[in-house]
């Protein structure tokens, strides 16, 4: 007869086996849909571009070198080129501003919703999610209609006599920023609201009771407690912003490219798949660095209190 210990061990083994079985479908999908394609991208980045797109199976580091350099057409020498770098910079800075501004607008919105009576809260959350119902492209075109030279804003301002010339918003970085704030704001509001809803408002009362004014209560009590929501929201906004494609394409015109557009260019008209692949991986690394920074920042301040 098996001892109790053996039975327990066997049960544990079975438990582990069941867990693997249950997670197998998810693992297969992750491999086929994420890891596999990613591997292909890495391989392509080390190949030679084909004449009409695609790749030729010949090892080359040119794809990677071209990320930040340019090969002279005449003497084949490599020289540093800032064209891509400026696109990297635009992507990072626009994503950063998008994150900061969505936080700026999203925090009060979330606070407002969280302090409503429970029934009304649901209505507000529902309203926040409405933009998700429409395709991103259509929403972006709608934004274009609002800000273009003959659009809603300019027509109204000119009719009111506030401006004589239409404001050039379209095809600028400001247009991209506006579009991204509009599109990503719900992604900031919802996680902050989720943590704010769990916030025990008696702690806020305790803060006031202990002589903290409104600003101090916000800074010393509310903010530290909803920080997980702020971090989640920032990640949810910053990362898709870095890879934004539709918004800069529609609102930024051809000149104000972001990384997503640059990658698309290489796989399309540029016919340089290895470069496109190399930039894609660079973007991924940037995202990972940003994530690490967030996570470290979050756990670091947590430690400061303990």
């Amino acid at each position, binding site marked *: 007869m098996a001892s109790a210990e053996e039975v327990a061990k066997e049960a544990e083994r079975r438990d582990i086996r069941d867990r693997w079985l249950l997670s197998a479908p998810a693992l297969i999908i992750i491999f086929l849909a994420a890891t596999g394609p990613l591997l292909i991208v890495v391989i392509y980045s080390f190949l030679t571009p084909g004449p009409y797109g695609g790749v030729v199976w010949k090892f080359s580091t040119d794809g990677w070198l071209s990320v930040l350099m340019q090969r002279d057409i005449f003497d084949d020498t490599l020289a540093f080129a800032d064209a891509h770098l400026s696109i990297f910079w635009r992507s990072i800075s626009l994503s950063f501003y998008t994150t900061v501004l969505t936080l700026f607008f999203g925090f009060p919105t979330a606070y407002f919703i969280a302090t409503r009576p429970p029934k009304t809260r649901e209505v507000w959350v529902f309203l926040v999610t409405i933009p998700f119902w429409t395709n991103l492209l259509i929403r972006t075109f709608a934004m274009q209609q609002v800000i273009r030279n003959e659009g809603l804003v300019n027509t109204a301002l000119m009719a009111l006599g506030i401006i004589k010339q239409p404001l050039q918003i379209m095809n600028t970085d400001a247009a991209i920023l506006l579009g991204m704030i509009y599109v990503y704001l719900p992604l900031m509001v919802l996680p902050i609201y989720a943590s704010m809803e769990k916030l*025990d408002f008696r702690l806020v009362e*305790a803060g*006031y*009771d*202990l002589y*903290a004014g*409104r600003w*101090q209560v916000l800074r010393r*009590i509310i903010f530290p*407690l909803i920080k997980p929501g702020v971090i989640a929201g920032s990640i949810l906004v910053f990362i898709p912003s870095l890879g934004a494609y539709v918004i800069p394409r529609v609102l930024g015109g051809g000149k104000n490219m972001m990384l997503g557009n640059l990658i698309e260019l290489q796989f399309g008209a540029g016919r340089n798949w290895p470069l496109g692949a190399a930039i894609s991986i660079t973007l991924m690394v940037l995202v990972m660095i940003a994530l690490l920074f967030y996570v470290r920042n979050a756990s670091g301040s947590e430690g400061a209190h303990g």
Partner: protein
Amino acid sequence: MSGNWIRLKSGRKNGVIVPEQPGKSAIDVRGVRKVFGTGESQVAALDTVSVSIRENEFFTLLGPSGCGKTTLLRLIAGFDFPSAGEILLHGQDIASLPPFKRPVNTVFQSYALFPHMTVAENIGFGLEMLGKPKAEIKARVAEMLKLVKMEALRGRRTSQISGGQQQRVALARALAPQPKVLLLDEPLSALDFKLRKEMQIELKRLQHETGITFIFVTHDQEEALTMSDRIAVMSSGKILQVGTPWDIYDKPAERFVADFIGETNFLTAAIASIGKGKVRATLKSGATIEATVAEGFQPKDNATVVVRPEHAKLTSGKGDLSGTVENIVYFGTDTHIHVRLDSSEAFTVRQQNTRSAGCGFERGDKVGISIGNDAAQVLRD
């Protein structure tokens, strides 16, 4: 309702008012009304309440849930504002001040400790917000930790300590800024029986040592009786009676007070004659007993007389009342004998137990009940 005061103009955080002329009473509540909701759904949580709370007093607001005791506490703390009336702290009206400008601190029912701070940081928070120098905060926090015997756990997160310890931290945190008045909102209700008894003694000790006025809210009448200097019994947004525990228990003025505090027998009686502070009342059984009357009250022909179960005596012979034993309940220290009177009213007698003998009665026994002099009181109803 928690956000009400936000609409008020706020000033400097250090603008906490300091009493100019300390009077006799710490808190004076004058004609305070508090109405929640609007229009049809309007509810008066407090209906024109007036009460004076003296300095260095352990004052208890006692009543069932929904009686308005917590509302009154929140008005004193500044989390809500009265719809009408004044709240004076040492003679100054504080009713419109936000909580961070009142030298009043609260121990919350749920403790409301800041989970992202350590025990010591929690205790020092109020002082920090008052802009006290670091050294002073450190010294005061150490003093408070010692006062509540929590020195060893100063660096712990509040989630890492037990309920009783959290309770002590909440107390220390509220006492650290040396408030003029400490408000306690059912602080012991989350503790188990033994810990609650310990904390009751602890609270009395703290109040004695600090000399701060305590306003204590509870629905537990026993807690109120054992801890308070004075008690205000509340019901439906009104204060029914204010007095010492002895007053409240032995001289309940109203039916609600008599019923809510301890156990009581209610008897209907006809007033036979009225003397000075005393009446002679004829009970349904025909017996006439002497009963005390609350000051300034003239009873009508018919009145309710109350007798505490321990002030009546069961006899096998004839007493002031007669009836049949319905039930006998053993309580360890004493035995409750439930008697159905011949007038069909219910009456309970509490009898002290002895070690050797039983209570001496059995279910179904015909018994008499004698009511001693000074055992009965006429209610003002």
